[in-house]
């Protein structure tokens, strides 16, 4: 059986610092959301937390990438999809 061609992107990834900035970012978003709710309850204020608007890059315009793009757009985020193919055609796992 032919070996699965693990991508060469795997090897040059040196020194990833954990948690990564992506993970920290998500954690902060989560914590801020929680804090907003807590202060609203405490003060009884009318303050409405601003809807979060993220810039998101999606790599791959397959079913998963496009579905993610649609869902994220409908939640108001800015979405860029990067696809290596020069045109969209049927691809897939057989």
């Amino acid at each position, binding site marked *: 059986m032919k070996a699965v061609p693990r991508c060469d992107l795997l090897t040059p990834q040196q020194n990833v610092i954990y948690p990564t900035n*992506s993970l920290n970012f998500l954690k902060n978003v989560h914590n801020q959301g929680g804090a907003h709710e807590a202060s609203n309850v405490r003060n009884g204020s009318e303050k409405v937390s601003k809807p979060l608007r993220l810039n998101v890059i999606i790599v791959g315009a397959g079913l998963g990438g496009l579905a993610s793009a649609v869902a994220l757009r409908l939640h108001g985020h800015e979405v860029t999809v990067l696809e290596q193919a020069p045109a969209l055609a049927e691809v897939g796992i057989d």
Partner: protein
Amino acid sequence: MLTVIKVGAGIQIPPNSSRLLHDWGLGPRLDAAAVHPGAMILRRWEDGKAIGLTDVGPKFRSMFHAPYYVIHRANFHEILHARARELGVDLRLGSKVEAYDANAPSVTLEDGQVLTADLIVAADGEIVGCPEY
């Protein structure tokens, strides 16, 4: 002579998934492009006798408030593509990602362009693509 050729994969979309897709505004397109199976029949290997049946017809649809679809992969892809375009997704073809930087976070394209974002979703498949973080 009858020739059987492969035309690609079919994808099953049960109601828990189709309900989401309907929420995304894909209902009319899916209704038009998908197959609406009436039932799934289990048969004995020896003689083809039906030994089990799951009705996935209209009753099933009303019970789960969403249909059971079977759709060709290419049709499903085109439907998602059309909806993404409609919603103003910035789709860039011919843009091959050469490297990920999880700490930035950023991606580097083949032509050397570096793109950063708040969040990067690696939807580039399970064989080639982004390492796990």
